[in-house]
């Protein structure tokens, strides 16, 4: 079953998805290697979900080349989907059935035997810590529990690649961390993950490698560390002003920082030494309401590359 060593599990070249005039995915190239956790980072409407749907063989490719396990999604959808696990953005659990039945019924779609599925369901529920809810109906479960169940369900066919479309969108921070912990464990077990997210923290925590997407195009590619090093400085100084916000930042920061990013609610100064920079402007007489020195994140990378925030 395994593809030859070194050959990517998924390969896209000049991949395009067009809806009428709109190019949702506008000629993207990427490779997914076995065992890695690969992410698409970008705001809503960047083309991440369209890309995922093409990989999931539920959206025909408009143009370009897409190969999954060396197969063609237009022709070999049945085989490809049998080897993928999909965690969709919107839950598609059946509310009338129990937690356990949801996994078993879904496993039957793959043609797996009931006896196998009963055992598998118990293991998966244990993994997502839902064993004690196995016999409960799905409907009253919390959002975080439903997500975990969706993840358990997506693993029922022992997929070679797990597709996760915005896996923690809509969850509260605590539930999000539980989901990340489970995904991190999967990654440690060697499951290949392909995820989309607009949370830079999610991308930083889970992805070995990611591409930054904006308006259907890939604007950068690398590990979270590499991207930050390449497109941002080591540190960022965040300045907030009250009513009297100066506008001539170039004057105040000249020679102190490598780049200034004025945002509506705050001003970001990019520098390798945040403390020195904040001292410097203070000495020049600029007194903001608050000053925060932090390290650069993927959010800063995105801002630099597109001039916009990830979450708008």
């Amino acid at each position, binding site marked *: 079953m395994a593809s030859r060593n070194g050959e990517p599990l998924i390969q896209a070249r000049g991949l395009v998805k067009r809806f009428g005039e709109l190019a949702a995915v506008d000629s993207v190239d990427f490779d997914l290697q076995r065992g890695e956790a690969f992410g698409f980072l970008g705001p809503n409407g960047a083309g991440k979900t369209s890309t995922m749907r093409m990989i*999931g063989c*539920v959206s025909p490719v408009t143009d370009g080349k897409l190969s999954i396990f060396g197969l063609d999604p237009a022709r070999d959808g049945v085989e490809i989907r049998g080897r993928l696990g999909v965690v*969709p953005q*919107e839950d598609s659990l*059946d509310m009338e*059935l129990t937690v356990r039945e949801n996994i078993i019924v879904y496993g*039957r779609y793959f*043609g797996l035997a009931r006896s196998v599925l009963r055992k598998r369901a118990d293991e998966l529920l244990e993994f997502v810590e839902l064993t004690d809810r196995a016999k409960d109906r799905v409907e009253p479960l919390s959002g975080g529990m439903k997500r975990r169940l969706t993840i358990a369900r997506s693993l029922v066919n022992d997929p070679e690649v797990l597709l996760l479309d915005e896996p923690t969108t809509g969850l509260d921070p605590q539930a999000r961390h539980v989901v990340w912990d489970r995904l991190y464990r999967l990654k440690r077990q060697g499951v290949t993950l392909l995820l989309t997210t607009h949370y830079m923290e999610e991308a930083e925590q889970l992805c070995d490698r990611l591409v930054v997407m904006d308006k259907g195009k890939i604007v950068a590619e690398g590990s979270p560390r590499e991207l930050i090093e390449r497109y941002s400085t080591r540190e960022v100084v965040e300045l907030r002003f009250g009513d009297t916000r100066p506008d001539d930042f170039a004057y105040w920061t000249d020679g102190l920082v490598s780049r200034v990013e004025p945002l509506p609610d705050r001003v970001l100064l990019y520098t390798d030494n945040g403390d020195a920079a904040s001292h410097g402007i203070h000495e020049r007489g600029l007194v903001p309401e608050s000053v925060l020195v932090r390290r650069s994140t993927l959010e800063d990378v995105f801002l630099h590359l597109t001039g916009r925030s990830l979450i708008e």
Partner: protein
Amino acid sequence: MTTPTLAARPLEFYFAQYRRVWRGTAISTVVTPIVYLLALGVGLGVFADRFADLPSGVSYLEFVAPGLLAATAMQLASFEASWPVLSAIKWSRQYHAMLATPLRIGDIVLGHQAFIAARMLMTATVYLVVIAILMPFFDSTVSPLGILAIPVTVLVGIAYAAPIAAWGAHTENEASFVAIFRFVILPMFLFSGTFFPISELPRVLEGIAYLTPLWHGVDLCRQLMLGEVILVSAIAHVVYLLAWIVIGMTLAFITYRRRLVV
């Protein structure tokens, strides 16, 4: 390489779901037609038998029972193909879950229709058993050929369920189902020969009644349950119902694909 149909797999899902809700549906699908049968067949039947001129001296109960069987099949199947289809697309998103597995559009369409067909078989069987038990109490009988009315309800049901499912996968607007039930299904229920021969209708309406799948189902069930089968006419009924099924299924394949694979 083409994989044979995998429609049996989603069928299991519908049965798992049905196990949770069957008590509620048992009332509406079995008890309701029996109440109708008693009220119309027995109550109204007293008048009808006195004044009406039913063919070859059958009782009104014998006349109306097959009509109710076919009409119930139409109603039940139409309902099963309306909101549940829209829900599987928009709310519960079950079709999307299925499409993330080896199942294809064709399997999803067939799987859902197969479940509706199964519901027809179950309901019609219970209904016929009840009729067979009740009839002798009212000096009426049902022909052994009536057993064949059970598969006929599948034809009637799918002749409605397939085009309605096709519409369900096409429409964005669930209110259109209310309109379909009020302005299409209900008039057919009343005027397609269920309760009186369509020859009683004005000429124009009689012509329209001939076009409804329900009338063909009613007449075929009636021939079978009265044990007075006219072979040519029976075959024509089956062919007509099959035509609706083929057209409805074809439309469903098209609208499902257009809606789900974009």
